[in-house]
């Protein structure tokens, strides 16, 4: 199945994958696992793209090939017009690994300083960027604590900060909300939306379908090393045989009238029920109230908006 109405041929294609295959071999070069079997992807500038699929479907392998960590067995891959793994492409990609594999003996600030140095951020800008990002991810109070002492969610936050420190054009996030509390999940989703507004391209690999659904423009669903479906969220999820209305709460008489009118028009009413908040919304409100009442925590702080240096690809000199 291939539904792709949001694909705009006028937009710049930043990631292009054609017939990508990857076979893992053992020490004697015998084929062990055929992880990818002819994948095609086309990701455009400024969109949020989701890679979905169960374990072993090939999501991480695809991402690692895009990053130059793995070499393709067949097919072609182009990232920003260059082969993956070249310094030119790596300089414009920010990557959040699936596992938080950062140096446990470095402090959060030192970790960001290392990332900035490796990302070729000019020395005069580093201090400011580190400070902005620590504030963004809510870790300014834990900046000088060793990462080994961080909670899993805090490590995830520092991972997001290091991925952004060199102001990349493309952000590749492998399970970005893994280990985060609902506040962190909401913040990550907000940041992704903000990054899209700045013209960044975001590629997300995730198992959490609800998260992907809320932020992605287009998705591809992988299974068995192949793309089984791809297209925009709306079109993939759309059902031609159903219509959903959300209204303010009417009284019983109004409901009865509406139901009667539908039946007279030959429209089947499948379900009618009271509206409800999502658990995420309810959780966020509760924590917000606790914060307002002056409760403190040793974990990550509230965090904030994207820092100003993330000017987006349009603003690059």
């Amino acid at each position, binding site marked *: 199945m291939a539904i792709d109405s949001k694909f705009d041929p006028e937009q710049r294609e930043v990631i292009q994958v054609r017939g990508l295959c990857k076979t893992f071999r053992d020490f004697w070069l015998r084929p062990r696992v055929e*992880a990818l079997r002819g994948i095609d992807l086309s990701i455009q500038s400024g969109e949020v793209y989701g890679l979905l699929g169960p374990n072993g479907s090939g999501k991480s*392998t695809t*991402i690692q090939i895009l990053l130059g960590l793995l070499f393709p067995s067949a097919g072609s891959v182009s990232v920003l017009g260059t082969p993956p793994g070249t310094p030119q492409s790596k300089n414009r990609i920010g990557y959040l690994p*699936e596992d938080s594999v950062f140096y446990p003996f470095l402090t959060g600030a030192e970790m960001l*300083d290392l*990332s900035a140095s490796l990302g*070729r951020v000019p020395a005069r800008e580093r201090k400011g960027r580190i400070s902005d990002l620590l504030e963004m991810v809510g870790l300014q109070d834990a900046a000088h604590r060793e990462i080994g002492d961080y909670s899993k969610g805090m490590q995830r936050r520092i991972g997001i900060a290091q991925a952004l420190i060199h102001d990349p054009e493309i952000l590749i996030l492998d399970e970005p909300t893994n280990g985060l509390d609902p506040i962190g999940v909401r913040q990550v989703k907000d940041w992704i939306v903000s990054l899209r507004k700045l013209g960044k391209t975001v590629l997300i690999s995730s198992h959490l379908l609800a998260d992907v659904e809320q932020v992605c423009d287009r998705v591809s669903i992988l299974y068995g090393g192949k793309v089984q479906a791809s297209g925009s969220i709306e079109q993939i999820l759309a059902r031609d045989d159903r219509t959903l209305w959300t209204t303010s709460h009417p009284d019983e008489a109004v409901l009865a009238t509406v139901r009667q009118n539908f039946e007279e028009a030959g429209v089947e009413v499948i379900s009618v029920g009271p509206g409800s908040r999502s658990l995420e919304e309810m959780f966020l409100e509760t924590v917000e109230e606790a914060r307002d009442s002056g409760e403190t925590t040793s974990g990550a702080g509230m965090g904030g908006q994207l820092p100003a240096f993330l000017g987006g690809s349009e603003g690059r000199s």
Partner: protein
Amino acid sequence: MPVLMAILAWFLMALLVTAVLRSRLQSASIFSIARTLLAEGWRRGVLPVGGAILFVGLALLPLLVEDASEASARLQIVLDYGQLWIATVVILLTSLMACGSLCDEIVTGRMRFLVVQPGSRWSVLPGKWLGLLAASFTLLFPATLMLVLISGQVSSSNTVLMESPAVSLVPPEQLQVTPEEIEQYLAFQKLEDPAGWGRLDHEEALRIAYSRLDRLSRSVMRGGRSDYRFSYSTGLSKGTELAFRPSMGRAHRSQRARMRVHMGASSLEILIRNGLRFRVPLPEALEGEREIVIGIEFLGAVDEDVRIPSVNWSGTDAIQLRVPEGSHLSTLIRSQLLLWIRCAFIAALGLTVSTFLGLPVATLFVFCFLIAAAGGGFSGAFEESNDAAHHDHGQDAPSRIVLDALAEGGDWIFSQLATWNQHVTGDRVAAGEVVTNSEVLSGLARIGLLWAGVTMLTGLWISSRKEHGLGADR
């Protein structure tokens, strides 16, 4: 007092590490990786614990010399064991950190984070290498300082290493038989005895001629005299001595003999004993000379009923000039520089083998190298055999050519390993011998640049072709 020195040395190491960690060298990723490695070594306890072991070991050195009565003997023992201890601990820690750091990053997946950063695939190994150099320096510098202080404490003066000169040992030219001398001797013998020498194979004749000339050059007959030429390019300095250890064959050690030494215009008659070392100061008139000839006349045994036919010079150090050159301290520093250069190679080797081997095997590999190098490379293990003795009709077969090439390669590797031992100078420093700048430069060029450079390039090549992404979810 030594305990206080150990504590101060530890704090000096801590100060050096902190200075590097807080340095503002932020312009290149290579320095960031180096600093990260140093932070790893410090915060994971390798450097604090390793440093403590190193300095406590040095603090115990004075216990070794409690029985030695002479200050010079105490100094020699402290320098000898001190340098050995420093070399052992620093090389061990360097190899463990080199293998451990990279293997850990590959196993934990941190290497993936490093490799996806712009340009860092090429700066990972050099950065770590630089970090290991810094780490070994933070150990080596305080340890050397502590050794200097302990040397002063156990000897007559606290500034003994600065005041006492190191000596350069100069062998005589005559003891080295040249190929021209062998050919001349052989030609003369063939004229004298054409029947006897003529029937010998040329190789065999050369071997016999060399053996005889060597024996002749190393002996002085009773009543005879041999002249020995010494060359010293920078000129002999004040305090130069002639040192010699005569061997008088089967004569008992208690037997005395007389020898006259001619040095320039002056001559000196001295009593010698079998196998004992003697030193004779050179006259002031010879100071500054670049070439001198010393004549040694053997006058025979003191007791008339004892017959000693000749005196022989056995061993490379049987007769030599001892020329003061620089201070003992400067030679110790040069020796420690050579140790640092060797650490640089060990770091490169550890990092390179860790790119394709796990921690235990990589460490074992480095230790095997150290054992092979310490054995002097078993030089000559693949020496070519004499054609006349072992003529092989199949030597032109392709299989033999391959085997010969492998043997040549093995011979080359073993002879290269011998270079390692040539640059282990701790025992020479302890004995008061000079370690020259040219030796340090030679060590830098061969071990520091050639060996470490080739090893690092190999590591970079392997690393650039290695896949680092083995995600669990694929």
